[in-house]
């Protein structure tokens, strides 16, 4: 790790310096800490997914790690929950927004730090506590484990609210001189809009968790299982009230959470594609409006779920219209990405490959979303495998690709050197092929569920096909998880080389974070605030393939072009 002293600080002991660094309020340290948290979570979560698949395919084989637990269906469900919570909370929510956002948002708007650094540190440590809690809940007996999980989810929501407040206020108040709203990079727009969305939905998750916890611990009657079951048709009533509580919690937050994970990824992808294509973002303002549209309709889809207890007969129609209306901003974003790439001066770095992989996965996953958004079609298509395939493709894997694209892009800014391109590209292609082999066949499996309408002979044939597809999915999962070891090797090898500082602006980008040294020094811009003279994606007059850096005054820009 690189450390910086300001020179005039009195010498302090190594231990205290270590503590000061770990419990730092600096936005770059905190952003990096979020990224480490995500890296640990994604590795554990991925191994869990491989274990889950292996158990589905070969249920009789004892899995070493699981042998010490009682082998009940609940234990399997708890493992799925652990996989899901690690991935959704600590990877998809934490990495693109809290990790990269904390590190880069203040730099990209020329601020010294976030608006409330102490609050930022507090919310990071709350998040870390929540990670410990959620992991610990898996090792608890089921009933207690659920309480621990709920409490951890509440803590996470509170931390997310504090971060969202910080991001919103920072973007509004801490922009440097000249950084008007239209000049903000699209990444900042995405983090900003996402912070507002988080502010609205995580308070709802907090309220939900409070209510469910109060039901479970204090005996209150918010989600009374008895009252709920009494209203259900008798043939659907099952033993135990657990599913009701889980469903409640799920609908409270899950739908909008998808957009919380995706919005910062949209921003990152738009930014990377423009930078690599060496062209301005196509219809930049429309793209920002599309971000707002995603945020708004993402929020309204949540609103539907709140009232979706069979009260309003028109609710499915409203939901269908709202969910389908997400297609409009999605189409705008796709058009912008493809138009920006079109005739671009693309240098196919690993970062751009992951960005293009994101677009591919977003299209593939989005198409099956069209089936699920229509309530009449959903009835035919919906089944566990189909839904799992859909949301993993469009949310899980696509967002992971965006995170990887961002990591390859900003690695020099964070650590001081680029990651290895050859290893990166191998990793990309193996992962890209792997995830398609996992999640596309899952859609087919989902459609096969409808085969009970077929005559007997065909049904047998379909069932045997299903079994081999399942095995294919499991093998592809193991392949993809194994491919990630290339990434781990690449990551840590690059870290070892990190002291060899490279050029300051390796991607010839225009935004403010590249105007300072690599890796970004602890003091950021120092005492002197940068001044912004233009938008984030403006090309120079002299060479139409070169971005004009935001912080260069017109005179120094002209001077720079003359000397070159």
């Amino acid at each position, binding site marked *: 790790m690189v450390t910086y002293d300001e020179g005039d600080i009195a010498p302090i002991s190594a231990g205290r310096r270590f503590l000061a660094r770990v419990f730092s309020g600096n936005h770059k340290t905190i952003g990096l800490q979020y990224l480490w948290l995500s890296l640990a979570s994604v590795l554990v979560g991925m191994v869990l997914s491989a274990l889950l698949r292996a158990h589905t395919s070969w249920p009789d084989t004892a899995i070493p790690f699981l042998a010490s637990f009682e082998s009940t269906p609940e234990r399997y469900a708890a493992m799925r929950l652990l996989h899901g919570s690690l991935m959704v909370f600590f990877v998809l929510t934490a990495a693109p927004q809290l990790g990269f956002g904390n590190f880069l948002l203040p730099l990209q708007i020329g601020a010294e730090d976030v608006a409330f650094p102490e609050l930022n540190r507090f919310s990071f440590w709350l998040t870390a506590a929540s990670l410990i809690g959620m992991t610990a809940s898996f090792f608890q007996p089921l009933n207690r484990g659920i309480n621990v999980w709920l409490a951890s989810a509440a803590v996470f929501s509170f931390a997310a609210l504090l971060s969202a407040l910080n991001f919103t206020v920072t973007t509004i108040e801490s922009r440097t001189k000249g950084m008007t709203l239209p000049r903000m990079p699209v990444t900042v727009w995405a983090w900003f809009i996402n912070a507002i969305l988080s502010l609205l939905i995580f308070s*709802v998750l907090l309220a939900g968790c409070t209510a469910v916890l109060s039901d479970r611990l204090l005996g209150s009657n918010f989600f009374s299982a008895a009252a709920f079951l009494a209203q259900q048709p008798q043939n659907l009533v099952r033993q135990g009230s657990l599913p009701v509580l889980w469903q409640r919690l799920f609908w409270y937050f899950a739908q909008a959470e998808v957009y919380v994970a995706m919005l910062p990824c949209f921003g990152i992808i738009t930014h990377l594609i423009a930078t690599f294509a060496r062209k301005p973002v196509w219809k930049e303002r429309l793209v920002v409006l599309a971000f707002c549209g995603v945020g708004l309709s993402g929020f309204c889809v949540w609103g539907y779920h*709140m009232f979706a207890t069979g009260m309003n007969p028109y609710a499915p129609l409203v939901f269908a219209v709202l969910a389908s209306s997400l297609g409009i901003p999605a189409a705008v974003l796709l058009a912008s990405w493809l138009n920006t790439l079109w005739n671009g001066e693309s240098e196919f770095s690993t970062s751009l490959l992951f960005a293009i992989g994101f677009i591919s996965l977003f299209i593939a996953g989005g198409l099956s979303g069209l089936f699920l958004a229509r309530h009449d079609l959903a009835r035919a298509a919906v089944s566990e495998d189909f839904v799992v395939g859909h949301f993993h493709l469009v949310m899980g894997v696509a967002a992971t690709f965006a995170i990887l694209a961002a990591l390859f892009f900003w690695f020099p800014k964070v650590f001081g050197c680029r990651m290895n391109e050859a290893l990166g590209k191998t990793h990309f292609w193996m992962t890209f092929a792997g995830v398609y082999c996992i999640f596309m066949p899952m859609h087919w499996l989902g459609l096969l569920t409808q085969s009970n309408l077929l005559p007997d002979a065909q049904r047998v044939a379909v069932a045997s096909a299903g079994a081999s597809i399942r095995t294919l999915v499991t093998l592809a999962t193991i392949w993809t998880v194994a491919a990630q070891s290339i990434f781990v090797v690449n990551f840590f090898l690059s870290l070892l080389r990190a002291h060899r500082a490279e050029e*300051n602006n390796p991607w010839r980008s225009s935004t403010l974070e590249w105007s300072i040294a690599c890796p970004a020094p602890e003091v950021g811009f120092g005492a002197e605030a940068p001044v912004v003279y233009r938008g984030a994606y403006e090309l120079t007059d002299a060479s139409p393939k070169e971005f004009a850096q935001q912080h260069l005054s017109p005179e120094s820009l002209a001077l720079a072009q003359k000397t070159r």
Partner: protein
Amino acid sequence: MPATTTIPEMKRIADKKDGGGKGNLPPVRGNGGGGEEGKNQPKRRPSPNRYYTGVAVGIVSVLMFFMALASAFLVRKGSTDWVPVRIPALLWLNTVVLLASSVTLEVARKRLANGDSRGFRNFWLVTTVLGVAFLVGQVAAWRILAGEGVYLSSNPASSFFYVFTGAHAVHLVGGVAALIYVALRNFEVAKVTRTVAADVTSYFWHFLDALWLFLLALLYLGK
């Protein structure tokens, strides 16, 4: 990079690197003569506006928390096990106390604006006392209900009553803490001025006041 790199040094490194003819443009900052002044300059001070924006954004978030519970209240109200809660008369008195605290808070701010530090202190103290009195009154109201055999776990309506009043009280404890902070803080050494701190606290306090009126109307009309 060695652990002893100073800012001016880093700037020089940055200059050298950027000028290296790799297609990068040299930065406009940090190239003005030596950079000895970089070391001892004061840190940039963010504007106090962030506190105003922060409290506004925080209010939206708190409002959303209560709206989620309020919509759950409206949905849950239709169910068969709903037994309406008779609202204790004490709550009306509490409401008057809370409204009065908003008025005294405004008087205190006016005194502060006029430079009447003593008057500010007195009215600020009255506000704090009224706030604590409201909290004590809420606890008393819970005890009255408990005496009638209406507990958190009795039925959905009572659960909502206790959680609404309880969550509001938790936020109000935060408000009282802010009032005490402003009263006791030595603003000679604080990051904010007394005016900013008093303004931000008063916004939050008035919001809690209005939120209480909303919750009371919801509980009274929605039973």
